[in-house]
């Protein structure tokens, strides 16, 4: 249709092929880039938490250097998770309704509760129990703003006895165990939001929540790798190769499972070839070509699988510098690939018409609430928060107690 300059009242019709329902013919999809970002961010939270729980629940000692960093990463991203949703709502000032009159047949109604539960009862509590002894010690010596923060977070409890510390450790373990299904719920319900929509064949199947959770775990581990290496580089430390190699191993195997299940979804679609499949093929070939074939499949899955897989086979032969570079590149590629996957699911489902006869196109704008500038801002915000958290809680100048795993890259 036309792409000339128009005034704000007239909608520029999207390019579409075939037949789409008239209500679908809007200039941009209803769920735009903000709704692509929301599952991406909560997926990173869930995945980072799973990474941390590998230490506490599955007792993978090699990963102890990233334990605290993983939890702080999860916290930083969780604090930003509501923003894309709030900006997307037609009436954000009514957002409290979702907690006051939650409609229990709707998966979206669970959001307020599962978010509050995960933030307060799981993440903050686990962090608190892990940090409590340190907070008590730091609050005694620190001054100024930091001092206020530490004293605030002790919540007035200054017991440092061995019994109290033992209780802290026990509670931390319990919370890690509780946290795993909670993390699955936090991100799984988003997958179910899409999976429950029987009206849309691109979304509505039972494998959608599973794919979301698996790709969340993959993205979370990749994010922890990324953050760990960046932080080490900033602090001019040496990377703990045992930790990094273990993270790469978990990333590889998680990626294998994720790729297998996504591949299964694809194979089933091709094999069953249900109604609208030819339109889906058109959509993938034309509208989602770069984001799916290049972004999700090649950059996000194939290349990292090859790199990490070769490292699993040839670890001893590859020198340390080479390993670090390959793992870092794989992690960065996985992060891009999972974002592309969210785009393909969210936007792809809306390009595909419910008339099963047509497909629309969509070009991401630069400015505006649903533009990529806003997306970039929302994605950089968690990193800014993480910087603050790291300065407060992973500072090298403050000693951490002996019982806890070393909180961060050591000298």
């Amino acid at each position: 249709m036309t792409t000339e300059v128009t005034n704000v009242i007239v909608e520029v019709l999207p390019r579409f092929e075939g037949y789409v329902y008239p209500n679908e013919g809007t200039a941009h999809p209803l769920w735009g880039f903000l709704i692509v970002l929301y599952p991406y961010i909560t997926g990173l939270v869930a995945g980072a938490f799973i990474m941390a729980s590998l230490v506490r629940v599955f007792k993978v000692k090699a990963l102890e250097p990233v334990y605290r960093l993983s939890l702080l990463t999860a916290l930083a991203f969780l604090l930003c998770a509501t923003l894309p949703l709030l900006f997307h709502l037609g009436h954000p000032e009514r957002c409290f309704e979702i907690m006051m009159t939650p409609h229990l047949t709707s998966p979206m109604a669970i959001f307020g509760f599962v978010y509050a539960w995960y933030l307060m009862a799981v993440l903050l509590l686990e962090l608190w129990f892990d940090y409590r002894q340190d907070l008590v010690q730091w609050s005694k010596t620190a001054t100024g703003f930091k001092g206020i923060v530490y004293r605030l977070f002790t919540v007035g409890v200054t017991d440092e006895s061995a019994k109290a510390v033992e209780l802290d450790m026990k509670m931390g373990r319990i919370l890690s165990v509780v946290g795993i299904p909670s993390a699955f719920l936090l991100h799984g319900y988003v997958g179910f939001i899409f999976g429950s929509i029987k009206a849309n064949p691109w979304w509505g199947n039972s494998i959608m929540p599973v794919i979301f959770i698996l790709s969340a775990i993959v993205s979370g581990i990749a994010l922890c790798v990324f953050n760990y290496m960046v932080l080490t580089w900033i602090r001019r430390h040496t990377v703990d190769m045992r930790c990094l190699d273990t993270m790469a191993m978990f990333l590889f195997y998680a990626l294998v499972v994720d790729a297998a299940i996504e591949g299964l979804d694809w194979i089933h679609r091709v094999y069953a070839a249900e109604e609208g499949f030819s339109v889906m093929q058109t959509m993938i070939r034309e509208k989602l070509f770069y984001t799916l074939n290049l972004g999700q499949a090649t950059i996000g899955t194939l290349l990292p699988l090859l790199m990490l897989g070769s490292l699993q086979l040839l670890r001893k032969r590859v020198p340390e510098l080479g390993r670090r570079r390959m793992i870092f590149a794989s992690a960065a590629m996985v992060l891009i690939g999972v974002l592309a996957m969210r785009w393909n699911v969210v936007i792809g489902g809306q390009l595909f018409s419910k008339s099963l006869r047509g497909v629309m196109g969509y070009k991401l704008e630069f400015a505006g609430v649903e533009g990529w500038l806003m997306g970039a801002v929302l994605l950089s915000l968690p990193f800014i928060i993480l910087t603050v958290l790291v300065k407060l809680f992973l500072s090298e100048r403050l000693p951490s107690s002996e019982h806890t795993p070393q909180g961060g890259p050591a000298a």
Partner: protein
Amino acid sequence: MRRFKLPPQILRLVLLTLGIVGTYFVARAVLTPPSFGKYGWYRGAALEELAARTPVYAGKQACDECHSEILHKLAADAHKTLSCEACHGVSREHGENPDILPVKLTGSHCIRCHEANVSRPAWFKQIVVRDHYSGKCVECHVPHQPNQTP
């Protein structure tokens, strides 16, 4: 008997939890609209609000008050299924104040329905306007009684 003493961390946390949960229930009681749940999981007052909107079209029955003659003629001929406002436009204001005139018929208005189109059902009277006549429809057809001639 040793008195059970709750560890200080747990006590603080329990108090905090009670505070947060208590605040939630108070907020819920205050912020839930009064008619919510009257008929189902929605604001019962919404039904009244939606019904309170002023209608725009007057409806064929409203025309009967003053124009019953025309309506009788209409009912006896092929245009009996038509509503007055289909051709004369929104006539609510005219119904309330007859000095305000409704939209008049124009020739093109007949074409909207009667232009021949292969998608239109075969029983429907259609003409290829180009080949039919170049003047006004009303020269040969009476709008309210289409089978009569003027």
